[in-house]
């Protein structure tokens, strides 16, 4: 018979209790709840802390700038820093990242300039950073579509014996899309080096998780693809980092894809144009604010004597300077050339498009003349 049995992987249900290495009080967790994963060393944790603090400050700053009208829209990741920063920190510069609109702070952590990240949300151009330079795809808006790109790129690299890994983030809502399914399946069948991080922030805009799935955990979906799945406390950066790191290593060494669910919560509105009071209780938000991922790690680091007041101040200062820089670039208007609208649609110029370009050029010249005459 044609069942390719040797291709089959071990079947196992992800643990229903989320994997956790630090509890909410900042204590190290021991025993089965860790899923066998080790707490990262203090240096790593301190670096994760630094990144989260900077990311949070950036996020708060951008939300403020958005309220002031400097950006067209901004989807905040406030509260999701453990997922956002933990996972992106588990890949290397040579690896590729496929983010969504929500993942600006992961891009910041990846070293992309605030002004470049925010070009799209400011409304200047659809994508503002060099994807090749950062090995970072544009922030996908059509849900789950980027997961397939991550799988395709990983497969290409694998065919080239290039030992890189691709990582993509998805929301809980996005797991309902057909593309999520197809990405999981292609990755598993092709055994691509891909790590899927589902940030389960429990809402898709206004729609709660219970309307999105009946699975016990989103990590359970891994079973249907014959790939490993992990259900992780998404407000525990130590757990997110360790689990994604292990998945990245397995992927790099030919072990195929992994699906990781981080259970977390979005503290801010979906975007600035959203009104979350319509669909969730303030007390839920309060509940989750008390599980803040940064405070949790901070408590641990302080209790371990790994975070001195000096370092804390130094990190806060670094965060402030990122915020200040962000304010600065976002309050300077970029020079936009409307004629560029025609220049990148095709590599080979099209006569009819050049005619349209010339028409706009003439219009702009007329308008400039009129403006000059009016002055």
């Amino acid at each position, binding site marked *: 018979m044609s069942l390719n049995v040797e291709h089959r992987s071990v079947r196992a249900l992800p643990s229903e209790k989320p994997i956790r290495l630090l509890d909410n009080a900042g204590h190290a967790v021991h025993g089965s709840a860790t899923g066998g994963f080790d707490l990262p060393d203090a240096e790593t944790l301190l670096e994760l802390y630094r990144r989260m603090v900077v990311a949070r400050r950036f996020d708060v700053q951008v939300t403020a700038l958005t309220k002031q009208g400097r950006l067209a829209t901004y989807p905040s990741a406030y509260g999701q820093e453990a997922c956002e920063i933990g996972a992106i920190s588990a890949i290397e510069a040579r690896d590729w990242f496929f983010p969504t609109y929500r993942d600006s702070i992961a891009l910041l952590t990846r070293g992309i300039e605030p002004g470049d990240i925010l070009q799209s949300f400011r*409304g*200047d151009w659809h994508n503002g950073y060099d994807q090749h330079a950062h090995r970072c795809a544009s922030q996908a808006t059509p849900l789950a579509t980027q997961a397939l790109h991550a799988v395709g790129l990983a497969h290409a690299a694998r065919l080239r014996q290039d030992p890189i890994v691709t990582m993509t983030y998805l929301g809980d809502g996005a797991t309902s899309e057909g593309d999520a399914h197809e990405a999981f399946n292609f990755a598993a069948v092709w055994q691509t080096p891909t790590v899927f991080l589902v940030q389960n922030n429990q809402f898709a805009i*206004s*729609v709660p998780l219970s*309307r999105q*799935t009946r699975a016990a955990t989103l990590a359970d979906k891994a079973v249907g693809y014959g790939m490993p799945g992990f259900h992780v406390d998404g407000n525990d950066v130590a757990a997110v980092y360790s689990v994604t790191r292990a998945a990245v290593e397995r992927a790099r060494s030919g072990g195929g894809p992994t699906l990781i669910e981080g259970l977390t919560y979005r503290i801010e509105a979906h975007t600035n144009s959203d009104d979350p009071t319509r669909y969730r209780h303030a007390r839920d938000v309060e509940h989750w604010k008390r599980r803040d991922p940064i405070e949790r790690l901070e408590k641990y680091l302080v209790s371990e004597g790994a975070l001195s007041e000096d370092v804390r101040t130094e990190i806060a200062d670094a965060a402030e300077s990122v915020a200040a820089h962000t304010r600065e670039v976002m309050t300077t208007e970029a020079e936009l050339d409307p004629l560029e609208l025609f220049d990148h649609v095709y590599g080979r110029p099209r006569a009819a*498009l050049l005619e*349209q370009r010339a028409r*706009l050029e003439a219009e702009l010249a007329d308008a400039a003349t009129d403006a000059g005459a009016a002055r």
Partner: protein
Amino acid sequence: MTATTTEHVTPAASAPTQLTMAGALNAALRDAMADDDRVVVYGEDVGPLGGVFRVTDGLQSQFGEDRIWDSPLAESGIIGTAVGMAMYGMRPVVEMQFDAFSYPAFEQMVSHVAKMRNRTKGRMTLPMVVRIPCAGAIGGVEHHSDSSEAYWTATPGLTVVMPSNPADAYSMLREAIDSDDPVVFMEPKSRYWSKAPLTLPVTTAPMDRAVVVREGTEVSLLAYGPTVRTALEAADAAESEGLSIEVVDLRSLSPFDDETVGASVRKTSRAAVIHEAAQFGGYGAEVAARVTERNFHHLAAPVLRIAGFDIPYPSPKLEEHHLPTPDRVLAALDTWEWDR
């Protein structure tokens, strides 16, 4: 030929109130749900949130979760299950959050929604409405301002309509819901907050008819949805320069009202179609082609297409350059040889 001119609003019973297009659509859904319990509404965020444009605001608290609910986030799933619900005899009204997010449902739309009646020789009909907040000019980031009408109008079996004002929004949505055939109901986002004094319920011209919304003698501007306002503004500006423009609100994109449009064009002998979507392969091509085919010897000039450029929809700060403006309309008319 005046059957479908401006007086398409039935006399008001009581004093009219100012209503936005979003409000009129909301009222249409509410009234349809109240009148017919086969009408159910679902999609992404249509429940407690009331839709990202608030078109379904308050409906869940009035009608309950069995009549209007949030579905999982999957557009093919939404359209595909709506097909099944309509097969059973319900009248689902589903929402695609933006044009670009209807694309995952393309196969269900083209291979089933459009084809079911024909496939079954009319034994199985699909009374369903697919609402699509459409087009741009709202400062939306990428994928939030597409114009998808050319995809639907190129698909035999679909009925495609687009209101341009609150009264039509109400009347046409009621008619779409009452229709035994699937209707793609496109709602121009940039007009959601436009207001008009209305007394509900209101019945305007049948949804398959175009309407002359401004009479003129020298040029026919053929517009729909967001560009009707553009056309009217251009007509006002032209009037002061002594050019008499007639504006036709197409309203029904498929079927196309050859009669009303033909009458206007034969009167004026010049026509231009205006839309936001890219020109190449856009709906305006069909309009220009068929108006020319049917009225060639009445035309003093080629039918112009005043449309978006042949580029992906621009980012918020650049969209103003892409969208047809009244000035651009008037400039285009100037390219004709006029021998008045």
